[in-house]
C-alpha cells in the first residue's frame, strides 16, 4: 500500500511537469493548429540558460526568475521572427518551422553546452518529505508547477489581456475588428508558453539530468497528456498531464518496468486517437451558422 501511494505521489510530481508542457503545447496549438514539436527543446535550452546563470554565481531563485524572463522574450521572438511571416502561408509551413526549430535548438545546445549529462540543482533538496511518501524535490516541484498552472489559468480567465490572447488565438479576424493587436497577442502567447516550458525544464532537470535530449521523453508524455485531456482544452491538457504522470509511474512500477515506460505514452496516444480523438475534455462545439 505504501509502495502504491508512493508511486502515485511521484506520478503526480512528474505529472505536474507533463501538465505544464502540455499546457504550453495547447496554447500554441490554439493559434497555429499544430503541435509545437520544438516545445521540449525550447524548455531544454532554457534549462541550460538557468544552469549557466547558476554557474555564473547567481542564486538559484534569481537564476530561475531570470530564466523565465529570458525564455519569455525568446519565445516571443521566435513567434515574431519565424512564425509571424508565415501568417498567410499554408498551415504545413508551421510544422516545418517547428521541426526545424527542434533540430536547431538541439544541435545548438550540444554545441554551446556540450552533450554530456549534467547535474542540475534542486532548490528543495533531495531528502524525504511528508513522512517519506515523496522526496522534498517532488513536493517542491509539484507546488511550483501547480502555482504556475493556477496563475496561468487565473491570468487567462480574469484579465483583459488574457481574454484578448484567447480571442486572438481563436479568431484573429474578429479580434482585429474589436481593436485587439493580434500579432502582439500571439507573440505574448509564445512567450508565455516558452516561460511555462522553462519552469517545467528546471523542475525536471534535477531528476533526469540535463543534456540536449532531456526533454524528448517529457515532450512525448506531455503530448500524450494533451491528447488525453483534449488538445483543444487547456484544463483538459493539464488534467491529462497529471493522469499520464500517474499512469506512467504505476505502469513502470507494476506492469511494464522502467525500460518500457516510454511505450506507455505511445499506447495512450494511439488509444486516444483511435477511441476518442477529441480527448476527455475536448471541445465539441455545435456552432450554428
Amino acid at each position, binding site marked *: 500500500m505504501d509502495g502504491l501511494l508512493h508511486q502515485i505521489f511521484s506520478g503526480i510530481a512528474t505529472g505536474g511537469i507533463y501538465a505544464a508542457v502540455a499546457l504550453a503545447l495547447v496554447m500554441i496549438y490554439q493559434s497555429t493548429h499544430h503541435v509545437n514539436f520544438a516545445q521540449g527543446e525550447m524548455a531544454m535550452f532554457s534549462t541550460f540558460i538557468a544552469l549557466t546563470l547558476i554557474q555564473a554565481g547567481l542564486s538559484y531563485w534569481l537564476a530561475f526568475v531570470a530564466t523565465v524572463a529570458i525564455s519569455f522574450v525568446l519565445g516571443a521572438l521566435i513567434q515574431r521572427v519565424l512564425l509571424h511571416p508565415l501568417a498567410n502561408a499554408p498551415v504545413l509551413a508551421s510544422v516545418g518551422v517547428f521541426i526545424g526549430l527542434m533540430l536547431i535548438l538541439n544541435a545548438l545546445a550540444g554545441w554551446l553546452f556540450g552533450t554530456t549529462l549534467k547535474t542540475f540543482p534542486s532548490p528543495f533538496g533531495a531528502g524525504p518529505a511528508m513522512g517519506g511518501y515523496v522526496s522534498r524535490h517532488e513536493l517542491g516541484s509539484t507546488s511550483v508547477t501547480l502555482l504556475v498552472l493556477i496563475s496561468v489559468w487565473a491570468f487567462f480567465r480574469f484579465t483583459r489581456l488574457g481574454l*484578448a490572447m484567447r480571442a486572438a488565438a481563436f479568431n484573429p*479576424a474578429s479580434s482585429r475588428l474589436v*481593436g485587439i*493587436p493580434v500579432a502582439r497577442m500571439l507573440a505574448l502567447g509564445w512567450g508565455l508558453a516558452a516561460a511555462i516550458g522553462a519552469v517545467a525544464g528546471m523542475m525536471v532537470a534535477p531528476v533526469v539530468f540535463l543534456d540536449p535530449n532531456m526533454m524528448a521523453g517529457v515532450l512525448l508524455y506531455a503530448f500524450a497528456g494533451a491528447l488525453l485531456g483534449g488538445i483543444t482544452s487547456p484544463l483538459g491538457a493539464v488534467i491529462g498531464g497529471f493522469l499520464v504522470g500517474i499512469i506512467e509511474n504505476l505502469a513502470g512500477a507494476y506492469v511494464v518496468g522502467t525500460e518500457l515506460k516510454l511505450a506507455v505514452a505511445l499506447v495512450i496516444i494511439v488509444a486516444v486517437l483511435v477511441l476518442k480523438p477529441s480527448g476527455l475534455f475536448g471541445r465539441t462545439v455545435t456552432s450554428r451558422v
Partner: protein
Amino acid sequence: MTDPLLRVAGLHGGYGATKVLHGIDFAVDEGGVTTLLGANGAGKTTTLRAISGMIRTTGEIVFAGRPIARLPTEAIAAAGIAHVPDGRGTFSELTVEENLRLGAWRRRDDIRPDLERMFGYFPRLRQRLRQQAGTLSGGEQQMLAIARALLLRPKLLLLDEPSFGLAPLIVRDIFAILRTVIAQEGTSVLVVEQNASLALAIADRAYLLETGRIVLSGPAAEIGRDEAVRRSYLGY
C-alpha cells in the same frame, strides 16, 4: 456642406490577383444610415473589408477627417469604426459575456451602463451570458454581434448583411431593433444588404454596387422608386 463622416474615393482592391473593386466613390453622412446594395458577388463585403483595412487597397478612405487607408485593422477599430462582419464574427468558443467584453476591449471606462442598455435592446443576451456563444441561434448571434460592435462606442457601425441566413420573422425583429438602436445610439451606420427592400426601409441614402462599381446613388426613397432597381433588386 459639412464633410461626411466617411469618404471613399477611387477605391480599388481585391484578393491577390483578383480585382474586385474598380474605383469606388461614396460617402457616409454623420448621423445617417447609408446602404450599399448589390447582387451576389458585387463586392459589398469587399468594400467593408477595405474600409476596415482587412485587404490591400489603393485609393482614398477618409474617416472623421483622417486618412485611414494605411492603418491596420485594429487601429481603424480604435479610431471608431465597428464592423459586424460577414458571418457575424462570433467568438464561438467564448461565452456571450466574454464576447461582449471583447467588443469593449479598447475601452478603459466602466462598461456596465452600456451593457445594461444592450440588454434593454436584446433581453435574450442577458439570459445567455454564461453560455458558449457558438451555441446561440443565428438570430441571437446576430444580436450579439450588433451589441458587441456597439460596445466599442463607434462613430460608425458597418453591418454586413444582418439578415443573412435568418428566418423572415427573425429578420423583421432584428431590423425593428436595429431601427430603435440607431435612433437611440446616434451612431452613423453603413449597412450592406442583398435584401434591398429591408435596407432601403431603414436607410437615408443608398448606393448601388455592380461588379465593383457604383452605378447609382441617391436618397434611399428615390432609389427605391427607380425602375431598374425595382425590377432587379426589389422584385416588383
